[in-house]
């Protein structure tokens, strides 16, 4: 063992010769080294950050009779276009209550609009706003996820992903976010 001899010499000559008792201690240093090396390896290889899952509920397609009419005043339509841009308006696409405006994601983008309009609708009708998300063919998956995430952040519960209509595609084309 890597132990310093501290016995201080010992007697020289004389006395009875005794058989030295062998120490039962084992040097564990190397073993500990190895154990920590393996621990380091396993810590580094385990994925610390597990992927998360966002729940997505789609409206049931089959039960046609079950659908409630949606008042246009409480509906906000968000069209997802190309280049991480969205276009939103209140009411129906042919006859919007507010002029369609193009914005992006994030704090000053669609989230502000969702918060403002959500409050406005709640004050007017006393019920939460309904958001219709219409991803266009040019939009990407991450935009859809970002949009759902924005709704989660503002705490909106009434939302649906709906197919886009030709009128709305024309709107996106007009504003140059469909390419």
């Amino acid at each position: 063992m890597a132990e310093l001899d501290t016995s201080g010499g010992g007697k020289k000559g004389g006395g009875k010769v005794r058989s030295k008792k062998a120490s039962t201690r084992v040097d564990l240093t190397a073993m500990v080294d190895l154990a920590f090396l393996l621990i380091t390896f396993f810590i580094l290889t385990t994925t610390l950050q597990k992927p998360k899952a966002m729940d997505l509920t789609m409206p049931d397609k089959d039960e046609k009779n079950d659908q409630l009419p949606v008042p246009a005043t409480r509906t906000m339509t968000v069209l997802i276009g190309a280049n991480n841009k969205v276009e939103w308006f209140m009411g129906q696409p042919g006859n919007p209550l507010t002029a369609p405006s193009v914005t992006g994601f994030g704090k000053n983008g669609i989230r502000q609009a969702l918060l403002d309009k959500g409050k406005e609708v709640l004050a007017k009708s006393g019920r939460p706003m309904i958001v219709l998300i219409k991803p266009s063919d040019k939009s990407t998956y991450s935009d859809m996820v970002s949009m759902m995430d924005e709704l989660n952040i503002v705490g909106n519960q009434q939302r649906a992903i709906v197919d886009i209509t030709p009128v709305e595609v024309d709107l996106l084309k007009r504003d140059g976010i469909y390419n």
Partner: protein
Amino acid sequence: MSRAKVQRKSTAIDMTAMCDVAFLLLTFFILSAKPKVEDPIHADIPASTTIAALPEVDFAQLLVAQGKVIFSVEGADVRLETLKGMADQYKINFTPDELKAFQNLDNVSVSIGVLKQYLNMTNQERASVAKTGVQVDTTDSNELYWWVKNARKADKLVHNKELKIAIKGDSKEEYPTIAKIIKTLQKQKVNKFGLITSLKTATK
């Protein structure tokens, strides 16, 4: 005159306790480690503020990247039943060896037509096979439809639980591909599923 001698202390430390702790931690990490399954196609998953963790059992994943869909389901027992269901559906007879190979297969990255051939390959040969993914289109009964359907049946049979389905999509994937998959799922009344995302800190 003799100087007072300073007692020399032993520099050896008792390593026993340290060794115990080290091995305890080592055991913990070895047991909690799960071999990482390498995706056949790389998908750069989008970030969101969701914090709900993914389930680890009764769970199927659809990996979507480059316009291809790769199907996988957790649990060797569920996989076995799924393949049996698929064999009935497509009138393909799988040998016991092929069934065993499928149980160890992490994901279905080839079409059902060449699956039998694929199962008889070695790992090296499989790596060279082009990953065409599971065929999916807008028709009523595409391959993905049957994979999901049989996996759900299998999970119900083996674990008596509802299979949870999650989509792991690449950020740059175009929406029509995702829409096709969602439509396929909705055809069998799967209206609730998960979107796998990484964690993003909310910019408030």
